[in-house]
C-alpha cells in the first residue's frame, strides 16, 4: 500500500472536504512528494469515473412510464 502517511489527506483534498488551512498544508506537501502527486492523479481519475456518471445512470429503466403524462410527483395520489 502507500508509504507516505499523507496520501489520505490528498484523497480528502480531491474530494473537497479539506478546510482552508489543511488544504494549503497538503498542497505544500504535494510540491515535495512525488508519491502523493501520483496518488492525487490516480484518485482524481477514479473519482471522475464515478462523478461523471449521470445521477441515476447505473440501472436500466425497466418500467418507464412513457405513455403516462407527467404530473408533479408530490401531488400524485397513490394509485399505482
Amino acid at each position, binding site marked *: 500500500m502507500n508509504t507516505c502517511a499523507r496520501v489520505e489527506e490528498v484523497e480528502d483534498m480531491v474530494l473537497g472536504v479539506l478546510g482552508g488551512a489543511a488544504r494549503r498544508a497538503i498542497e505544500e506537501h504535494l510540491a515535495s512528494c512525488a508519491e502523493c502527486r501520483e496518488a492525487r492523479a*490516480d484518485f482524481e481519475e*477514479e473519482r471522475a469515473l464515478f462523478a461523471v456518471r*449521470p445521477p*441515476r445512470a447505473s440501472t436500466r*429503466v425497466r418500467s418507464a412510464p412513457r405513455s403516462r403524462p407527467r404530473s408533479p410527483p408530490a401531488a400524485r395520489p397513490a394509485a399505482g
Partner: protein
Amino acid sequence: VAITRDALAGPGFLAVASDPRAEGRARPEDVEREKVATLYAEHGARIHRFLCDLLRDRALAADATQETFVRALRHVDAGRDGGLVAPWLFGIARNVSLEMRRARSRAGRVIVPSEGASGAEDGVAAGSPERDLLGREAVRIVGAALARLSEERRTMLLLRLDHGLAYEEIAATMGISLAKVKVEIFRARAVLRATLAEYREEERGAR
C-alpha cells in the same frame, strides 16, 4: 399506506403527513415525519443513487430508498445524539439492499450485477454531447468494475469514490475495522484500475 414508486421522484411518500383529520393538533408522528422529510430532502438523491448501484435495478432501488427512510423514521431519535447522519443512513440502505437481494434469491431470482448492461441512456437528456459520451464510458467502466467485486468491496468503493465518505465513516457504516476498510478499498481500487486499463486497451485495438 399504499405508495407508488413514482412518488419517490419527490418526497411524495412523506406527504402523507398533512392528514386533514389531524388539523390543529401536532401529532408526534407528524413531528417525526417532518424530521424525515428534512432528512430525505438532504440525502434522498444520494441514497437512491447508492441503492441503484448496489441493486442495479431502478424499480427495486426506489423501493429500497423508501424502505430506508421508513426505517430512518422509526429510529430518527433512538440513540443518535449528534452521531453522523451519512454513515447511519448508508448503513440502513445497505441492510435494506442485502435483505432485498436475499428475498430475491429465495424467490429464485438472483440479482447479478450486469456488466456493461447499464442504463447509460438515462443520462442523455442533460449535458453536452461530450459529457454524455464521457458519462456513458464511465457508466460502462464503473459497471464492469463493480460487477467484479464482492458485495462488501463494491459497497466500500462506492462509499469512498462516489459518495466521498471518510474511511472512519465507512468503517462505521459497515461495522468493520478501519484497517480492514483501508485494505479492502485499496484492493477494490486496484480492480477498478485494471478494468479501466482493459477498457483503454480495447479502445486502442478498436481504432
